[in-house]
């Protein structure tokens, strides 16, 4: 039975999201907060329990869906996968030092200079393989895959006609390099040896694109949404100038084109602020890209990209985690009213919901959509 969250709805969650992705007006604005471990505290578990127990995390997610009546996109279950993923990305413990959750303290990266400035030539020659520290995490990844395969997530979502947030995932070389170098060192490289950084990005593009091949294969099944999450956070214009962003745009563009060529929509999960470089993304055709925004000005994004890209976002954690329900409603109402016209807009979180979000704030977010987010037909 497709999920219905309000009597005035005339679409299923899938139909609603698909309308937005095609830049059409659905029956109402979709409500699409991204979950990380918020389900833990909402259901009386610790973040640690939620993170490490995949079946329990899934049950907690289902419980939260029952508590709030569901959402228009699914992001749930334990995020543990990402930390054991045997592919080059900033969350992978195969390359980086992460402290995993303890009690209610979330996982955190201990960022340090793993790659030295002299190592750029090594990266250009051999890619990211020389930086694998813990090849054994592959075993943990397989273990997680096996546990997850026992869950009935696909059937449950199919019944509700709800799609998962994405079916594939990639980070660009520039982000991987930035984390290997560590933030400050990377930024100094961008100022002092930009050509070297760009060459290293170009040299490692194929290595990262190869990680998409099995993911795309797995996503080519009936009913799967052809959406690929393309996440990057380090070349934001609160870090580097638009001029410097221009150096990295070619490889970002090529990766995007590869994703589109394979029949997927690019879901830019771009943490930090990209307001000053939004124009670059107008190069892509309508309906082939969408944005999950963080600090980027969503109203500016609507102005520049509203005719071609679906926008999702971006209620910040300071409001959802620390504000009152009234603060949440005020913020969401302003955004809904400013962005809903013409379709192509979904109310979501900046990146993920804070783990400590009070239940009443999540309810306020959803209630706001039901109150102000219906399109007048």
């Amino acid at each position: 039975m497709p999920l219905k969250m309000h009597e005035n709805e005339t679409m299923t969650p899938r139909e609603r999201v698909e309308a937005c992705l095609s830049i059409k007006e659905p029956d109402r604005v979709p409500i699409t907060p991204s979950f990380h471990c918020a389900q833990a505290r909402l259901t009386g578990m610790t973040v640690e329990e939620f993170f490490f127990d995949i079946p329990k995390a899934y049950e907690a997610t289902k419980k939260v869906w029952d508590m709030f009546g569901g959402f228009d996109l699914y992001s749930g279950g334990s995020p543990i996968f990402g930390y054991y993923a045997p592919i080059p990305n900033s969350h992978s413990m195969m390359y980086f030092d992460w402290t995993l959750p303890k009690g209610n303290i979330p996982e955190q990266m201990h960022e340090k200079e793993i790659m030295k400035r002299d190592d750029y030539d090594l990266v250009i020659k051999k890619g990211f393989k020389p930086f694998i520290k813990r090849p054994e995490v592959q075993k943990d990844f397989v273990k997680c895959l096996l546990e997850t395969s026992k869950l009935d997530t696909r059937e449950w979502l199919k019944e509700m006609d709800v799609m998962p947030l994405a079916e594939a995932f990639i980070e660009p070389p520039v982000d991987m390099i930035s984390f290997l170098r560590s933030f400050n060192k990377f930024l100094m490289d961008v100022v002092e040896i930009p050509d070297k950084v760009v060459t290293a990005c170009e040299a490692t593009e194929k290595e990262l694109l190869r990680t998409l091949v099995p993911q795309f294969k797995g996503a080519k099944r009936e009913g799967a949404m052809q959406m690929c999450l393309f996440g990057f956070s380090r070349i934001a214009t609160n870090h580097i100038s638009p001029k410097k962003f221009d150096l990295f745009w070619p490889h970002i563009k090529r990766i995007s084109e590869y994703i589109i060529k394979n029949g997927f929509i690019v879901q830019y999960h771009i943490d930090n602020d990209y307001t000053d470089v939004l124009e670059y993304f107008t190069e892509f055709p309508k309906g082939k890209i969408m944005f999950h925004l963080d600090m980027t000005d969503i109203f500016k994004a609507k102005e520049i990209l509203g005719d071609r890209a679906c926008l999702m976002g971006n209620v910040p954690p300071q409001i959802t985690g620390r504000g009152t329900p009234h603060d949440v409603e005020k913020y969401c109402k302003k955004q809904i009213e400013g962005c809903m016209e013409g379709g192509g807009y979904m109310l979501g979180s900046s990146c993920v919901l804070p783990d400590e979000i009070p239940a009443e704030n999540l309810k306020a977010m959803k209630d706001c959509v039901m109150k102000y987010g219906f399109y007048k037909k």
Partner: protein
Amino acid sequence: MSDELVNAMADLQRSKVYEIVRNEIEKDTDPLKIIEGLSQGLKKVGEYFDKKEYFLAELITGGDIFETIYQEIKPILEKKNVNAQIKGKIILGTVQGDVHDIGKNIVKTILTVSGFHVEDLGVDVPPERFIEALKQTEAKILALSALLTIAIDSVEEIIKLLQKEDLRDKVKIIVGGSAFSEELVKNLDVDAFGIDPMDALKKCQQFLE
């Protein structure tokens, strides 16, 4: 100090800055004059940042160039028993529950090269440690960093402890990091919110006025 050093610093020409400084050291130039030249150059870096000609990347580079040279000159200063003037003491740390330190370290560099003595307590710092450090150093500024919104509970703990120890009105509190926003800090008993490293510097300088 020569315009050449000031401009090389402002233009972030690391090798040229090092070359000029080494030549000046060989000529036995007063090390304080060298630091003054670098400071003038770094001040220009800050001005370019405010005008959005430079961004965080350039600010970090400028701070790093300055700090690298400062570490080379420090032994000379100590040998000559010359102390660069300290503007004020600051206790800095990432609060309990949070281990992120990127922003904190950038701010530390900017404050240090601008003449503050910064005692960095590191990350995941319990509230009691901040209080202890304030008492030991008699620092008048407490700078708290957090990326995770959950860490704001620790900030509230620190403020309560300062009030309990009768220290709250003897210390200025500045907070910074992605956990905070202008709206959020209105509900916290803090004195300033540093939006970026240069803003943090300006606010710390204002505390001293």
